[in-house]
């Protein structure tokens, strides 16, 4: 008879879990290395950052021009003036800013949920059949001097046994990969020192 317990015990659960955990650990290391490499790229990529642009509106009075472009005067002979505006633009000095400082953070990933599913189907069938038949034939004949008779019999016995046993199994493994915030230990800290008031130091981390 099939031993279901033995079949289940033969499934290498321990090895499957170890192989999966090992594969996840290797993948996690590779992903973390790629993200750390990306931190270096982002920290090394700079662009010119213009911190501020000051636009000042200045009065710009001017005389209105009349026909033929001649300066226009009113009935008293005073010039007709409009206020006018002049926009003076003062672009602050640009300085290099890294993408990391600017706010571009690398994405880190983590495996959050892993599943191993093993399905096993054990089928065992047994069929046996026996047939038994008995036949008897009697013949008799009589003549003038003799009489004869015969008896014959037969026995048929058939026995059939069918036995089948099958085990089918399947397994599936799945894992979920989610983006997570950058680990604190892998991201640089930014110290902002205010040179106007050096006692003011701001520390931030992405």
């Amino acid at each position, binding site marked *: 008879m099939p031993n279901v317990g033995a079949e289940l015990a033969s499934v290498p659960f321990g090895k499957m879990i170890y192989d999966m955990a090992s594969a996840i650990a290797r993948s996690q290391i590779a992903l973390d290395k*790629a*993200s750390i*490499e*990306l931190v270096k*790229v*982002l920290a*090394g*990529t700079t*662009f010119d*950052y213009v911190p501020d642009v000051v636009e000042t509106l200045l009065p710009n009075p001017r005389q209105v021009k009349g026909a033929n472009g001649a300066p226009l005067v009113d009935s008293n002979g005073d010039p007709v003036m409009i206020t006018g505006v002049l926009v003076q633009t003062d672009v602050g000095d640009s300085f290099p*800013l890294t*993408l990391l*400082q*600017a*706010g*571009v*953070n*690398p*994405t880190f*990933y983590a495996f959050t949920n892993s599943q191993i599913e093993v399905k096993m189907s054990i089928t065992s069938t047994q069929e046996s059949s026996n047939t038994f038949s008995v036949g008897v034939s009697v013949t008799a004949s009589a003549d003038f001097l003799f009489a004869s008779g015969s008896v014959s019999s037969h026995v048929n016995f058939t026995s059939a046994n069918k036995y089948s046993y099958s085990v089918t199994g399947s397994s599936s493994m799945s894992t979920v990969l989610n*983006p997570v915030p950058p680990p604190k230990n892998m991201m640089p800290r930014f110290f902002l020192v205010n040179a106007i008031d050096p006692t003011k130091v701001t520390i*931030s981390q*992405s």
Partner: protein
Amino acid sequence: MAFQMYMVAFNGDFSQAVSRDVQHHIRKHNGVTLMVMKTGIIGAFDDSMVPFVQAHPSVKLVGGVTLSPNGYAADRLQRIFAENLAKQIQVKPQ
């Protein structure tokens, strides 16, 4: 699965030709270019396209990035991304 932002870093020194070629490569894989720098491109594309973008000979690495609102120039970068994105997508009436 999802359209995400990626940093596509160049292999070797910067050149206009390489940058343009990588941008075309991203576009070919239904991606968009959000910002171009000397060391690489910040682009957005479906994450299933990462291996194809990575396969370009001038690409060193492709890594997912996010924009932190606490960044020094996050709002300005966001505006730059939006302006560049607007130049590359076509909105069709339904």
